[in-house]
């Protein structure tokens, strides 16, 4: 991740006394900020933690050089991603982009005058799904249950989903991931940067509707995986998959199953899910509170 930072920033960050680096935040003309396991802190020009008044100020040249490196001097090659507000780097690391929106004909055309770049290190947790895999796949190669992972934000839903995908594919099933926001497989130029299994096809950046159509027509999945369902159209997608006999693994924001099952979008897809996994942060992100057998 460091090689994509402007040389001046790269040199400072490499000298900083860090635990495992999690984030680097570049904000134009504001203090350089890092995050490790201890939390966020500013960095001085001497590469030491410092108060904001004595921190290294990110310059326009730093941002410009960093942009050149992350886009490989080729803005046009990352148009779609930039409109989504992020880029994925080799290794699956993500760079969030903030700037000025430019609209044309009512839709977002581009972002200009970039003022912030937020680098987040990719973290996959192999084994995150160990405690639930036997319930999701009661008979390897033969039976897998459609599973919904529910929790409030920041509880590790995507991390669990990713490892579940890897393990389900490893249990002998053909899996298709519809990775609308590139967060499950974190693909870089079409190649998954995180381990989602050997028998997994990734539809990177596809909308769920188009992804489902392509998957069913061309990829013969036994399991379809997608993140963040909760729109009205998602009920239709679930029903379509159920009609085709394809199992589904997905995530959804919510406090629990009782709350989620009352949502209107689920009516069309009611009966699709057979297992609900509830997560929390009670013992850290990824805490499995309960696994409910439904349907």
């Amino acid at each position, binding site marked *: 991740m460091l090689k994509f930072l402007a040389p001046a920033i790269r040199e400072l960050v490499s000298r900083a006394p860090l635990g495992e680096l999690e984030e680097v935040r570049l904000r134009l003309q504001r203090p350089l900020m890092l995050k490790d396991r201890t939390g966020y802190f500013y960095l001085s020009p001497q590469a030491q933690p410092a108060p904001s008044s004595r921190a290294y100020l990110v310059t326009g040249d730093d941002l*410009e*050089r960093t942009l050149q490196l992350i886009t*490989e*001097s080729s*803005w046009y090659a990352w148009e779609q991603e930039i409109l989504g507000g992020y880029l994925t780097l080799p290794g699956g690391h993500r760079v969030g982009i903030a700037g000025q929106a430019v609209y044309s004909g009512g839709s977002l055309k581009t972002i200009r005058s970039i003022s912030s770049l937020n680098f987040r290190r990719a973290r996959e947790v192999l084994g995150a799904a160990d405690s639930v895999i036997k319930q999701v796949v009661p008979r390897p190669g033969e039976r897998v249950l459609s599973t919904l992972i529910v929790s409030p934000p920041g509880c590790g839903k995507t991390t669990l989903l990713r490892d579940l995908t890897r393990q389900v594919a490893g249990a002998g099933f053909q899996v298709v991931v519809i990775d609308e926001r590139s967060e499950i497989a974190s693909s870089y130029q079409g190649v998954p940067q995180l381990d989602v299994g050997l028998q997994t096809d990734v539809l990177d950046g596809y909308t769920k509707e188009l992804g489902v159509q392509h998957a069913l027509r061309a990829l013969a999945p036994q399991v379809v995986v997608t993140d963040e369902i909760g729109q009205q159209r998602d009920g239709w997608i679930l029903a379509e998959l159920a009609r085709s006999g394809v199992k589904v693994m997905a995530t959804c924001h919510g406090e629990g199953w009782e709350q989620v099952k009352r949502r209107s979008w689920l009516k069309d897809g009611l009966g699709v899910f057979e297992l609900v996994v509830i997560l929390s942060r009670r013992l850290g992100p990824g805490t499995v509170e309960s696994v409910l057998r439904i349907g």
Partner: protein
Amino acid sequence: MKSLAAALIIFSCGGMGLIIAGSYKQRVHHLRELIRFVQLLESEIHFARTTLPKLIAGQAAHFSGAVGRFLTELKEALTAGTGESFASIWDQGLAILAQDGLPPEVLEELHACGKVLGRSDAAEQSKHLKQLLYRLEQALAAAERDQEKHLRLWQYLGFGAGLLLVLLLV
């Protein structure tokens, strides 16, 4: 001795004439290579969204002469990892093309294009590159006319001047 001296004079002058004539041919060749490169660039950006470093690294070896050297220079600078702006790297490369006698107006067009390459979406890039192509094709047409007019003239003028000099000296 006199014959040797006469031969030397004729062939020296003839050689100079050939070099000047050759520069007209070279200019046409460079412009054709540049046009070929810009067409490839436009196509790769428009259809494949290939990044500039990847495109240039893949193509540098397929171009000869000054354009080949220009692309090699770009390739090396782009892989250095300093985040230097593409425009700056492009301008450094243009110095190689300037040494090989490309017309100043062509260099100016290339310089202007370097300022926008890689900085906007594919549709905008395509527009700029098509404009550049048009200018390069105009420059090529002018260079071909010049070549037709001056090539044979300088080929014969060199030897003719040498012969005249020998006659005057004799």
